[in-house]
């Protein structure tokens, strides 16, 4: 169980090794890596800048991770999210889940991604190849993806 918010890149292989080293109770490890798309005819993006809300980001990611651990029998988990300016092909986010069985690992990883996409305070600004910056709009499909887990979100009302 760990959460890291950083500008540095991460190494999915190294992080997986650290998480599973010496463990024989793990049967399944799922990793999700989100990367910057761009520089293609469809998406002429030359860079992406991620802004976040220090303090709240860590709180929300820890909450999301604790929620996953409460719902599935996880042996280990990790969330790393980068911020700052990234280029096409660069890593953005890493989620790793480890469990005795594959269904728990898969579901927890999907949940973590859906949930952090709808709750973690990050905002992406894309800069195109002519230097024009534009904030990325939230996708309704991401809210729907989070809603399918039907969990009461922590919200002040």
């Amino acid at each position: 169980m760990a959460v890291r918010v950083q500008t540095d890149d991460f190494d999915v292989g190294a992080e997986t090794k650290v998480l599973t080293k010496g463990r024989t109770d793990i049967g399944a490890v799922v990793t999700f890596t989100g990367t910057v798309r761009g520089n293609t005819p469809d998406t002429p993006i030359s860079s992406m800048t991620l802004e976040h809300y220090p303090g709240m980001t860590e709180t929300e990611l820890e909450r999301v991770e604790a929620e996953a651990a409460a719902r599935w029998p996880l042996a280990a988990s990790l969330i790393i999210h980068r911020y700052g300016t990234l280029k096409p092909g660069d890593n953005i986010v890493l989620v790793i889940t480890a469990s005795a069985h594959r269904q728990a690992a898969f579901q927890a990883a999907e949940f973590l991604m859906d949930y952090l996409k709808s709750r973690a305070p990050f905002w992406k600004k894309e800069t195109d190849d002519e230097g024009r910056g534009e904030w990325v709009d939230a996708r309704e499909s991401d809210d729907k993806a989070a809603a399918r887990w039907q969990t009461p979100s922590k919200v002040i009302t």
Partner: protein
Amino acid sequence: MTENSKPIKLMYFAWVREKVGRAEEHIEPPEDIATVGDLMGWLKGRGPEYAAAFERADVIRAAIDHTHARSDAPIASAREIAFFPPVTGG
């Protein structure tokens, strides 16, 4: 100054920050500003940059002390309130 009117730290992110023209500030709203929604309405009247930032108030999200908060959430005990567009991380 009554207890309700102690200064609140406001933080702005993404295009809300760009439109307001600052990342944070301290404010002392009037006592009748009870909710997040009230506060957005009050901020709108503080100048054209605020009016522009909070024009689409329905899409702006808020957090009170690092926790997501709805428009009807009370702000009486808030130390820090943040306003931002829907999140787009991951």
